[in-house]
């Protein structure tokens, strides 16, 4: 896309991306980073779970059932964040033809989808004791479900095109179009919701969160975020190997391990 090369700043940025975005370089860098990220993730999980399961007192209304929040809420947040991250990677890959960004986007999709699925499952597990039903067509629930379909569609499109470059570019366009849709889904569903949904079922009628719940929640959120980055690096490393399997450096690498 030549027309983006005109701006000096942008072109310097592209040079930078191309330099550090070389798959070979990134493979090594990611290899060095993974243990650190994994360590931080483990630490955060241990602390977060300890705080969430022992330290925080039971809720006066829900007893211990509320503790599922420490999994549910971070996953719900991450599901949305991951989509935005994925779309940005995809756009970078498409516009500036950066293959590493394509791979990062591709590696993000299943992670985002599983965050979404976890949020859905934990949410409905929580819904049974709280609302007496597994599922309600409430605003947040519905928008989360649609987010899940966007992920599934993205992955389905990726999977059904086998030329990797074409697959990356096609699904990038889809991801970009989908991101435009996200805030719209969000607001439209609110609109719909306020007209129809009895207030008893809304999430906003929750009792205010106490600091004893907030701290474990924040720790757990960071734990899931670092979990995401760790898994991203791991997945993108294997993606790089698959995509670069014909290059000399991968041949040498694989050869030396055998």
């Amino acid at each position, binding site marked *: 896309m*030549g027309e983006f090369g005109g701006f000096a700043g942008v072109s310097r940025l592209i040079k930078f991306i191309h330099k550090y975005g070389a798959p070979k370089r990134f493979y090594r860098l990611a290899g060095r980073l993974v243990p650190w990220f994994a360590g931080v993730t483990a630490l955060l999980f241990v602390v977060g779970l300890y705080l969430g399961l022992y330290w925080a007192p039971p809720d006066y209304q829900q007893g211990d059932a509320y503790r599922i929040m420490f999994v549910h809420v971070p996953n719900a947040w991450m599901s949305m964040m991951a989509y935005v991250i994925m779309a940005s990677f995809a756009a970078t890959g498409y516009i500036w033809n950066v293959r590493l960004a394509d791979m990062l986007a591709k590696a993000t999709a299943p992670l985002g989808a599983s965050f979404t699925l976890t949020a859905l499952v934990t949410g409905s597990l929580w819904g049974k004791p709280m609302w007496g039903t597994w599922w309600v067509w409430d605003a947040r629930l519905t928008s989360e479900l649609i987010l899940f379909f966007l992920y599934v569609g993205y992955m389905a499109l990726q999977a059904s095109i086998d030329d990797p470059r074409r697959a990356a570019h096609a699904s990038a366009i889809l991801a970009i179009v989908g991101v435009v849709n996200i805030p719209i889904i969000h607001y439209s569903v609110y609109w719909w919701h306020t007209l129809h949904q009895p207030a008893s079922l809304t999430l906003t009628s929750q009792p205010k969160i106490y600091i004893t719940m907030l701290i474990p929640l924040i720790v757990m959120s960071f734990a899931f975020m670092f979990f995401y980055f760790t898994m991203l690096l791991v997945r993108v490393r294997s993606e790089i190997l698959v995509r670069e399997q014909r290059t000399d450096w991968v041949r040498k690498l694989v050869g030396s391990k055998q």
Partner: protein
Amino acid sequence: MTSHSLFSVRGLACARGDRTLFAGLSLQLDAGEAIHVRGPNGLGKTTLLRALCGLSRPLRGDVRWRGERTSDLAEEFAAEVAYVGHLNGVQGELTAAENLERAIRVFARGPDAALGVAAALDRVGLARLAGKPARHLSQGQKRRLALARLLVLRRPLWILDEPFTALDVAAVASLSSLIGEHMAGGGLALIVSHQAFELPGIRDFDLAQFCKVRS
């Protein structure tokens, strides 16, 4: 270096899937010249033609028309090329004549149509079938219709992928003489064909020289 040729390609490399088919390909074409690209099945001839006319992005290399990159010229360059690929690009629901009329309106820039529809159909031997839905044409008749597009658009650069497929002996001869006239009028042509054809002044171009030994 900007080449002085009308159409010049330097250092072109193309891939399909993750295999590089050819690399370092250069060629020059000037007014009135034509080349016949040759090579065995699966070498990358179709891939080359598609990259040259801008249907696919090459891995590397640059393609220039009157010294400017074709990717920068974009539609300006498209207005100079006529491409006939493996597919005919003929719409079955429209009649033969309607197919050409549409081609003129959608593809000709301004009123520069070279031959009228009727004359073009006559030239490719489809005059009698002008009103027949293209879906009912035989294989060879469809191909003739696709080639008639070359006649109604006045394009300097012809890029033809196996144009002789399905044509009978008379039509093969008539197409070669057509290309000859095009060259005589200052046109350029790039032709991929396994079939032999007579055309004085056409250069052979062996694609194999730019392909590595296959893995």
